[in-house]
Every structure is written in C-alpha cells, then in structure tokens.
C-alpha cells in the first residue's frame, strides 16, 4: 500500500510543477524554495489521496486487493510519466526538482523539514489518541463498528489524508523505496514484539526510528569506507536504500530471534527443551535403578 501511495503521488508532483511553471509565475517562483516545495507536495498529496479513494472504491467493487493496488500504481505512474514528458521540455529546472522527489534527497533536508515532520508526527499521534476506538474497530471489523455506531466516514477520510501526507513527506526525505520499507518493516517487527495493538504501535515507533538512524549511519560509514579505499565521489549506498536495507534486515532478525516469539528462537528453545527433558528422564532412570 505504501508503494502504491508513493507511486500514486507522482502525477501530483508533475501537475503541481506544471501549475508552478504556467501559473502565477512572478508571485511564486521568485522567493522561497520552501513555498515551491509546499506546492509540489500539496499536489502530490492530492493525487495520493485520489489514488487511495479509487482503491477503496475498487475494493467495494470486489476487485482483488493486489490487482487494485498494482493497477493504481501502474496507471498513476503512467499518467505521471505522460505529464513528465511534457514538463521535461517546458520547464527543465522544475523537472529536475521533481525528479529528486522520486529518489529522495536526504542530503538537502533542513531544520525546517525536521520541524515539519515533527508537526506531522504530533498530528498523527493526536489523531490516533483521540480516535483510537474508532480506528481499531473500523479497521478490524467494519460491520461491527457500524453496528456499534463507531463508524465515522469523515474520520476515515482524515486518516486517509494523514496516510497520504505521511507518504508524500517520506518521499521527500528518502524516495519511494524508503516509504515502502518503512511502512512494512516496523509493522512486522512490532507484531512480533507485542501483545496488543497499542504495544505494537509503540514498538513499531521505536523500530522505525532505529531504522532511520541506523540507515543513515550505515550510509555515511559506507561512504567514508569507500573514500578511504579510493572510490572517489561515489555514494556507495544512498540514504534511502540504506534505510530500506536496515529496515528489512532488522525486521527479519526480530522476526527470527525475539524472545518467546521469534521463529528461530522457538525452534532453538524447543530443541534445548527436548534435550533437557531427555536428560531429566535419563537421570530419573539412573536414579530409579
């Protein structure tokens, strides 16, 4: 779903770049790069939400979920490519700016972006806190929620918008890859580590933050190592893919080795328990004799 939303935002990026190129030029293009960023991201948010809305409608029509996701992904990407081909000749500089959104430019992030992320984070936490029961019941059993008057379409729409804005800001930071990884891996890790939904959210938060941190460190360490060897001017592992790699490895490791839940942990402990049991039985036999 994360990948679909991030691909779905591609035409939005292009459309807002078109708007910037042909719209009120002097008022907007003059100053702040941030305003340009904001307009671009808003366009991305629009199409991402549109993609999410289309997905829910397609599910209502009983189109298989993976087919719906794949179709929205592919067709929105195609429309985006169409607009991009026009933009490429019309406004090359804007086109370059928008291309960076695809791959993420973590190195051009500023404190303003950090503040923006923090505000988004607070908004999400507050929305989840206030609408916890709504969210949980509607997600797991919609009919039950409707029967208990726990279904608010407006709240659902708000959550959709939050998801889209999350994906779009994530694209700015790390590119499409990071969004796909960070929406899946911390959830997988959280599910292994937790016993309830709230705990899962907590652990997923920690794991997600850890992935971001470790991914950055990995990327920087690899770059210094590559420089010391002699690869000049090569980014061995850009930040986005580094975070994705770290996230996947961490999720798999936690899935395997978390105490009492991990799969390899259970196998190993079963074997250890069997051995202990056999030893105890042997000792009893010897004792009885």
């Amino acid at each position, binding site marked *: 779903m994360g990948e679909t939303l991030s691909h779905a935002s591609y035409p939005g990026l292009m459309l807002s770049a078109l708007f910037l190129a042909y719209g009120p030029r002097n008022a907007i293009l003059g100053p702040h790069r941030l305003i340009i960023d904001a307009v671009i991201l808003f366009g991305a948010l629009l199409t991402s939400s549109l993609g999410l809305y289309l997905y829910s409608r397609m599910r209502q029509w009983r189109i*298989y979920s993976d087919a719906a996701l794949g179709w929205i992904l592919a*067709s929105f990407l195609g429309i985006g490519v*169409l607009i991009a081909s026009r933009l490429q000749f019309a406004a090359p500089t804007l086109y370059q700016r928008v291309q960076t959104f695809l791959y993420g430019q973590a190195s051009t992030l500023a404190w303003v972006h950090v503040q923006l992320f923090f505000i988004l984070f607070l908004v999400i936490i507050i929305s989840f806190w206030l609408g916890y029961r709504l969210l949980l019941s509607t997600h797991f059993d919609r009919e039950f929620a409707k029967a208990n008057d726990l279904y608010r379409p407006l709240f659902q729409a708000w959550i959709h918008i939050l998801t889209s804005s999350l994906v779009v800001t994530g694209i700015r930071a790390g590119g499409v890859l990071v969004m*796909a990884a960070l929406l899946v891996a911390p*959830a997988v890790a959280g599910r292994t580590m937790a016993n309830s939904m709230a705990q899962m959210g907590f652990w997923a938060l920690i794991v997600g933050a850890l992935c971001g941190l470790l991914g950055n460190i990995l990327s920087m360490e690899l770059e210094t190592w590559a420089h010391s060897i002699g690869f000049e001017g090569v980014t061995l592992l850009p930040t*986005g893919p580094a975070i994705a*790699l770290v996230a996947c490895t961490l999720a798999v490791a936690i899935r395997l080795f978390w105490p009492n839940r991990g*799969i390899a942990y259970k196998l190993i402990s079963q074997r250890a328990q069997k051995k202990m049991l056999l030893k105890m039985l042997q000792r009893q036999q010897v004792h009885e004799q």
Partner: protein
Amino acid sequence: MSWLMAHLPSYLVQDAVQLAILVLLSLNCALVGPFLLLRHQTMLANSISHTVLLGIAAAFLLESIAANWGIDKFICVIACSALVAWLTTFATQKAQDFLQLQEDASVGMVFSGLFALGIMAVSACFPHSHVGLEIIMGNADSLAVDDVYPLIWSFLINSLLVIGLFKEYKLTTFDRSLANSMGFEVQKIDYLLMTQVTLTMMVGFRAVGSFLVLSFLIGPALCARFVTHKLKSLIWVACGFGASSALIACLLARMLLQSCRLPLSTAGLSSSVLFALFLILWVYKMGEQRRKQRNWM
C-alpha cells in the same frame, strides 16, 4: 523491408516501428496478465519489475566475462533478470511460509530489500549513468527496427507456453490443492510463469520501461474482467484491448505532435489510454448495475 523504410517519410516508419513494438508488447502482456490477475500475483510481478534492477546491474558487471564466453549481451541481461526474479519469488514464498508473514508484507519486504541492493549496485558501479531513469520510463520515441525482433521471439515463446501448458496454468490458477493432489508440480509452474513475466518485462523495458509494463500486464486483463469471465475469452479480450490501446496511443501521440506541437511520451500515453478505458468500462458497469436494480424494483 529496407526498401519500404527508404521510401516512406521517416516519421511514418518510426511510427510503424513504435506501433509494432507497442502492439507486440501488449499482446505479450495480455497472454501472461490474466494468469497473474487470477492468481493474485500482480504485486509479486510489480516487485519483480523493480528488483530486476539488481539483475541488470549484475548483467552489466558480468558483461565482459560473458563476452569472453561468446554469450550475447541481451541473453546475459535476460538470464540475470530471470535469476533475480526466481530469487524474489523464492524469498517471498519463504518469507510467507517460514517467517509467517502476511502476503503483502512479505512481498513488500523482499521488494524493498532487493531493490535497495539493486540501487546500491547501480550507484556503486555506474554512478554517473542514468541507468535508473531509462529503466523506469523507457524511451518509446527512440525505437529502432532491431527492437522488434526480441518482442517477436518472446511473443512466440509466450504463446507456445500458454497454449501448450494451458491446462496446467488453468488448474493451478483456480485450484492449487487439486493440482497438487493430481501430481502437477505447482511450484515449478509458478516459477515458469514468473520467468515468462520476467521475459516479457525485459523485452519491453526498452520501449516502456519495466515499471510501465505492469500497466500492460494488469490493465487489459482488468478491463477484460468487466466483459467476460471465461479464461480463454479473458485472454482474447485482453489481447484486443491491449492492442487497440497501443494503436490509439500511437495515433494520439502522432496527432498531438503534428497538430498541437505537444511532444508526449508514447509509453505514458498508452498507460493513460488503458486507464481511460478502465474508467469507461467501470462507469458503464456501474450504470448497468443501477439499471438492473431499477428494473428489478
């Protein structure tokens, strides 16, 4: 062929080549697409379309070695992509069975891990070439006649496999357990289908880029599902939809270029035409349902 090319105005020849390639590509995808759709493996195909970046990088790295052995570069690329596609499928299945992840979680994780490795390979070994961009979007406007031949080959291979193994594909799509109990090797058939998908993607990536091949794989099949429910007619109708939208896209591109002086990417146009077709069919179906409800009442 070259006489024809020498005597026609150049843009018509270019268009003919483009049309041939797009139509062949959509026919290829329409052969394989309905199976992917019915097996719920479209996201797997999507992750393969991304992870083949790793295969292509590996192929470029091994190119010199392969040349020493006399292997054609294109075959090398296809072989490496097939290997990576098998790796993706294998890892996704293992993630589902052994790690007990949900279907979409396993697909997502394998995709991000392998794609990250692919980007690492590309940025480490080819830092200044725009390998990534070409693969995403392809360049439908700079195609040559030579690009048609791989597509013809892959169409032949695809149709032979689909026609020859139709019963196997049909059974394993609709009833895996029955196929298993009857002795069909369901796993191998899965891998064979994924290999076909990879082949189709690889021959198409010069034209539309491997990401957009997905829209050719899903779109015609999805639109055909609105029209029919039988597997054979699904394939035929998907072929029809795919070929006609390729034709419309080429015509539109040429028309827009000549009359409105608007250079648009033909690949993006074909994807948008498919989307428009889907919307039209969907709205028609919605209207039909409403009419049925009214008649019933």
